[in-house]
């Protein structure tokens, strides 16, 4: 008669369908949190990488020297991120085409730019990997929670039908359990949506700085071709 209703009991006393919903939502929540943290690490590393590489690039260092440093880092099994990859792809292609005397200046520029574009899209893809999962969790998990709620309320009304006398005590646990499903759905969705919005704006910043850099770098290369 005096059973306290609390969240833990709600989870374990729920009907199998609602428990399945709880399980799905819990998994989604955990995975979305994994992605939130992992993306945060990747994106902040990319932002830091942009700053530090721009500093090195505009420090007046010789470009082939910069390229050699990168090669050395690769040999030391250090990860090369973001902007430096774009620079390396463009510079490599530029040097390779420059050594072939038959290729004219415009073709060299075109080749370098293409290489940079490929590297850029690879970098962008790396950065925005799994972000769409966050968007999916953010939009779908409230619906999953709602589904659990509907099933739970349906169950409690079915239970009510078998009772001769309708009291609140018969329906209340079922409805509480059902509402708890919605609560978990929102609990999974809210961080995912917030993180998705935040990370996509950070991604925009980083990719636009990549584009700016590749434009600047190609103008430098262009100058180098035409100065000779």
């Amino acid at each position, binding site marked *: 008669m005096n059973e306290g209703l609390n969240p*833990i009991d709600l989870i374990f006393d729920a009907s199998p369908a609602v428990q399945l919903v709880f399980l799905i939502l819990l998994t989604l929540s955990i995975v979305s949190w994994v992605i939130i943290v992992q993306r945060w*690490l*990747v994106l902040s590393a990319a932002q830091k990488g942009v700053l*530090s590489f721009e500093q090195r690039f505009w420090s007046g260092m010789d470009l082939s020297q910069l390229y050699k440093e990168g090669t050395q880092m690769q040999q030391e099994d250090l*990860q*090369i991120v973001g902007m430096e990859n774009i620079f390396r792809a463009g510079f490599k292609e530029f040097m390779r085409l420059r050594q072939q005397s038959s290729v004219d200046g415009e073709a060299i520029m075109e080749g370098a730019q293409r290489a940079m574009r490929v590297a850029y899209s690879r970098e962008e893809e790396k950065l925005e990997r799994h972000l769409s999962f966050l968007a999916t969790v953010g939009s779908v998990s409230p619906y999953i929670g709602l589904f659990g709620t509907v099933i739970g309320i349906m169950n409690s009304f079915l239970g009510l039908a078998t009772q001769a*006398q309708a009291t609140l005590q018969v329906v209340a646990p079922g409805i509480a359990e059902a509402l708890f499903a919605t609560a978990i759905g929102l609990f999974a969705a809210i961080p995912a949506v917030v993180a998705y919005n935040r990370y996509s704006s950070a991604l925009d910043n980083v990719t636009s700085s990549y584009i700016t850099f590749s434009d600047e770098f190609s103008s430098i290369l262009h100058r180098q071709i035409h100065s000779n």
Partner: protein
Amino acid sequence: MNTPLNNLVIYNGYPLSIVIALVIHIMIFLTLLYLQSASEAQSLELVQPTVIKALFIDENPQLRNQQLREQRRVEQVEQQRRQEQQRQEAERLEREAQQQREAEQQRLAREQAALREREELERLRERAEREEQERLEAESQRRRQQEIAAEQERSRQQEAQRRRQQELAEASAAEAARTEFELVQSATALIQQAVQETWSRPPSARNGMRAVLQIRMLPTGEVLDAVITQSSGDPAFDRSAENALYRAAPFRELQSLPINVFNANFRSLSLIFEPEDLLN
């Protein structure tokens, strides 16, 4: 480029992220557990009505008057006895004084007549002896009387004590009966409350309806069976009463009752269902 952050981003930072995500969820789960324990601590319990033990110390004017009368009588007897004693003492003193006076006279007479003296002396001694004897007799009689009075007093006191003890025993028996009555009352109140909570009256219930259910119960508080001994005339009403009883059962509170109290009061019990608070 070899920042601490890069060290965290080993394997693209997945291990760290998984650990953090799991920690977050486990923390939330623990918070829920904590809330549960907190809510369990303050979960409401069915409060058993406390048995209020009110001893009625009766102020019986008749009894009190009787006691007062008794006391007054004792005092009177005492006073009488004292007066008697005083009187006897006075008599004795007077007698002694007279004796002395007579002895004086005798001595004078002895001086007056030597011959007559011996006879007179003899006679006087005889009288003195007789009087002495008389006095002794009176003394012993008085003592006997005193003893009788003391005896009577003692027996009366014993009687009073016995009566008081008897009264005390009667009072304790009455008290036991009263606590049993209180137990029965509190258990009945619990049953009533439980049944009332589960009773939902049908729309056809009207004021003045009355259904009486004769129920038989086991000492475990379970209801063996219930029979409608007096129908309200409305089958729905009767059924609702019966349903309420079966849903309120078992009455686990009855387990705590002494078995004799249970047998005397709850083995068979009739419950009256009346919708008193309805407007129509």
